[in-house]
């Protein structure tokens, strides 16, 4: 968080803190007054539940499962997308087709992929694959745009010196595009978490997605909200981690 907060000017901190406090107070008031019905708990209900040992084991196990699926999906999707983008840069003839493929795969609604994935990789693997696809799209878009937008002068130098296409891509376009690629990674990390959670809705055995759906069906309100908060926290943590990485890469490569 410190990497994020360090850049916030003093002037905007007070209203921002006021906004967060207001949000929590409003959430608690809605729960206490029952404005949104029985499904909206008070903040203290959720905190009480979160501090109980049973909840911590349950949520801990689910967090580990979802986190693992999201992390594997993030790495696999990111590397795969990067490889495809590099392929597109090396073989310009393949490029437009790959762009189109990425757009179509991204536009395919996740539930449309479910029958395919459940048959091929099984119920447990589905969440990892959906996480990989979600993360991969963000990385692919960032990487194609990064590789295509290298400065003209640099390209001319490489062309004049007779560099091969491979060494131009690896020694010029890739390092120059790294900050943009890392931008894509900051988007890909929360996308991977979301993909993992949604993937678990199609019959996984454990994970935050499973908890969310079963708590919804069995009207376990504190568990439902705790699972939702855990998913949000996981997503935020992934994002903050990548923003910190981006800060480092930007300082190193620009």
């Amino acid at each position, binding site marked *: 968080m410190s990497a*994020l907060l360090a*850049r*916030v000017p003093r002037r*905007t901190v007070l*209203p*921002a803190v*006021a*906004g*967060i406090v*207001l*949000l929590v107070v409003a959430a608690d008031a809605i729960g206490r007054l029952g404005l*949104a*019905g029985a*499904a909206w708990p008070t903040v203290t209900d959720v905190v009480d539940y979160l501090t109980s040992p049973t909840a911590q084991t349950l949520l801990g196990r689910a967090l580990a499962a979802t986190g693992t699926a999201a992390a594997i999906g993030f790495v696999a999707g990111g590397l795969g997308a990067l490889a495809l983008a590099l392929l597109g840069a090396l073989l*310009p003839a393949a*490029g*437009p*087709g*790959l*762009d*189109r493929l*990425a*757009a*179509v795969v991204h*536009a*395919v*609604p*996740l*539930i*449309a*992929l*479910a*029958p*395919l994935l459940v*048959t091929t990789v099984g119920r447990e693997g589905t969440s990892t694959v959906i996480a990989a696809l979600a993360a991969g799209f963000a990385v692919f*878009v*960032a990487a*194609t*745009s990064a590789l295509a*937008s290298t400065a003209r002068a640099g390209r001319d130098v490489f062309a004049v010196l007779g560099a091969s296409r491979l060494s131009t891509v690896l020694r010029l376009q890739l390092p120059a595009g790294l900050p943009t690629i890392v*931008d*894509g990674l*900051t*988007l890909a990390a*929360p996308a991977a978490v*979301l993909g993992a*959670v*949604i993937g678990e809705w199609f019959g996984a055995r454990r994970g*935050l997605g499973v908890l*969310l*759906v079963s708590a*919804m069906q069995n009207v376990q*309100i504190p568990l*439902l*909200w705790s699972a*939702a908060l855990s*998913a*949000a926290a996981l*997503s*935020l943590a992934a994002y903050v981690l990548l923003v910190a990485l981006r800060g480092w890469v930007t300082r190193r490569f620009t």
Partner: protein
Amino acid sequence: MTLAEESERIVRARAAAPVRRPAPRTGGVVRRVVSRYWTIAVLLVGWQLWASLNGYNRIVVPQPGEVVADVVGNSGAYLPDLLATLGMSAAGLLTGMAAGVALAVAVWTSPLVSGMTTPIALIMRSVPVVAMIPVLARVFGYGWQTVLVITTIVSFFPAFVFVAARLRDAPRSTSDVFAVLGASRVTVLRRLLLPHAVPGLLVAFRLTAPSAVLAAMLAEYLMGGRGLGVLFAQSVSFYQPERAWGTALVATVVSVACFVGARAVERRGLARMT
């Protein structure tokens, strides 16, 4: 850089459409079509080969022809659910984007509102809204109103961020003209800033249209009721693989069509407004 600018930069990066590559100079339409769509053809052929070579029976993996035949032959079975999903998505897009514009204008009028909404905007960016469908389903009840709430929330954030950004960076010279002529704040908003914000709204529309459809289908899948998501859940549980894969196909075509349509609207709108 404030958090608002930070989150906006991220959303903008997400908005970056795939790079336009120069079309191959030689060859005509055929070559262009092949160069753009070869991957899609590979996918279809791969599906066909995968289904027939492994000798899967139709319960496991139906073949492309069977799926298309079910969609074309029984289109009456798909149509009501398709219309329900599209209606919910369109209504959610409308209300969500209207709310986004309204909040963007509110933020423009008052620095206090702007400061207080920044953390909320950041939270909404980092909270996976679609993953919150179970919570929303409990709070708003199982039914169409929850689908509407979800599509509204999904459509809200991009409209807010892009319109707010455009309201902030109006061209200096035109703002000066308005100031010199003593225009009131309302006039500035109506005659300068809102027209200036239209391209931002169009980008938000392109980004949101497919996600709204996707969110509607996921909500329907989890809650039941009507729509493509329900059709999918039912055909899976009644072992109608052609119907299940057909629903997936229809959903994909609808989603791609929404994206292409929204992009066309964006291009036409930009051509008119700039």
